[in-house]
């Protein structure tokens, strides 16, 4: 009881509405509270508004209504908050420097850190994702899986407290996907993950939010939500294979 009152939520979203100039109300009246250390999976069909919601959370899109508070401070449109970080769906959108080192150092340098501190952070971030030996290579020459790892390192180097992943396993082969899953499972930050890879969500997240057409449909325990066939199908999802016989006692059926 006491601890719950003491611990402040990492993220509080209240009554958020987001629009694009030519497309109104992509996100409609969304409210969400995420506590420190939670790992929230966002699932929902194409065009549900997941990416838009994330852009709103980071202050890239200006909400038409509502408020976003991260770690006690409101997120203002256009203001940079190093404690919130977004990993893009396509790593190419994040990698543009001539070398991997430059790419990972980009964030820390913009934060105005000293040269030594930048170096420490880059090394640390690269070693977390297991890409130390790539440091001198041009980012444009990496394989898909390596690009993903480096783009994650570029964000980790800013030591964010809230880490948002958009489709972390897109375009990866099975080995690289497994590596990303391990990384996510081991990370200590509060996580928000949007993915169509429900098995990944199931392995990583301890809470799932199902969204469709800009609304939150339901929010709760991953196993419970994902094994609700009616609910999942109504919103273009499928019960993940691993849920069908493993966790539900199908032997009795």
């Amino acid at each position, binding site marked *: 009881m006491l601890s719950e009152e003491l611990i402040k939520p990492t993220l509080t979203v209240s009554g958020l509405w987001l629009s694009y100039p030519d497309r109104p109300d992509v996100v409609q009246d969304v409210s969400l509270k995420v506590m420190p250390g939670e790992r929230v999976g966002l699932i929902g069909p194409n065009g549900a508004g997941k990416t838009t919601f994330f852009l709103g959370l980071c202050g890239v899109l200006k909400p038409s209504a509502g408020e976003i508070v991260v770690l006690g401070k409101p997120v203002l449109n256009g203001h940079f908050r190093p404690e919130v970080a977004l990993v893009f769906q396509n790593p190419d959108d994040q990698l543009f420097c*001539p070398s991997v080192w430059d790419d990972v150092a980009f964030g820390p340098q913009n934060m105005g850190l000293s040269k030594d501190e930048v170096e420490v952070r880059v090394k640390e971030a690269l070693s977390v994702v297991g890409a130390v030996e790539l440091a001198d290579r*041009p980012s*444009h*020459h990496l394989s898909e899986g390596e690009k993903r790892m480096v783009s994650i390192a570029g964000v980790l180097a800013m030591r964010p407290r809230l880490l948002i992943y958009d489709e972390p396993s897109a375009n990866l082969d099975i080995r690289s996907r497994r590596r990303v899953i391990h990384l996510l499972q081991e990370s200590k930050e509060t996580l928000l993950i949007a993915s169509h890879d429900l098995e990944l969500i199931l392995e990583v997240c301890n809470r799932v939010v199902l969204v469709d057409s800009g609304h939150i449909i339901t929010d709760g325990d991953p196993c419970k939500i994902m094994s609700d066939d009616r609910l999942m199908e109504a919103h273009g999802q499928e019960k993940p294979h691993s849920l069908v016989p493993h966790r539900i006692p199908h032997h009795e059926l």
Partner: protein
Amino acid sequence: MHIPDGILPVPVTAAGYAATVVVTWYSVRKINQKENPRQDIPKASLLTAAFFVASWIHIPVPPTSVHLVLNGLLGAVLGYFAFPAILIGLFFQAVMFQHGGLTTLGVNAVIMGLPAIIAHYIFRIRRFGNQESRRKTGIFGFLSGAVAIGISVAMFVLILLTNIPADLDIGTERAALYTLAIAHLPLIAIEGVITLLLAVFLQRVRPRILDGV
């Protein structure tokens, strides 16, 4: 740096169109002489679009910001496709953003396109002599960028001033000429430096692009 509709007299715009037709015809003929002329079209088209998009990148120069022109690098990279590429870029500018104009399309293509062709030859000089080093790429990158934009600025200012539909006295004209030229000097320097940096970046990351289309 595009001359809009309504300023230039018909003889000038017609001459611009004539020159554009001739240069385009020559470029197309050269392209068609290649072994497989279709092979490079997607490359040239996507790079045309990419150069167009790259010109939206703004560089802060307090109190304002300038956007890239990059006609030097475009010439260096696209070779015979450079003039058609610039013509297409200007056509999109005129139709989509009402920037430049339809009657002045030819004149503007000459202003931007001829320097691009010159830049192509300047950039090719780096191949002479011993091996192709990063420094040489940088130097000739700078030269092609700065020279191309320099010539464009000169042509732009000259054509504009000599064709304004009203006579200026010689003094005013000269003053305007100098003011405009000096105002563009920082732009020329920045274009040169950016072209240098871009050429070095491309050489490190994807040298094939610099080999031309």
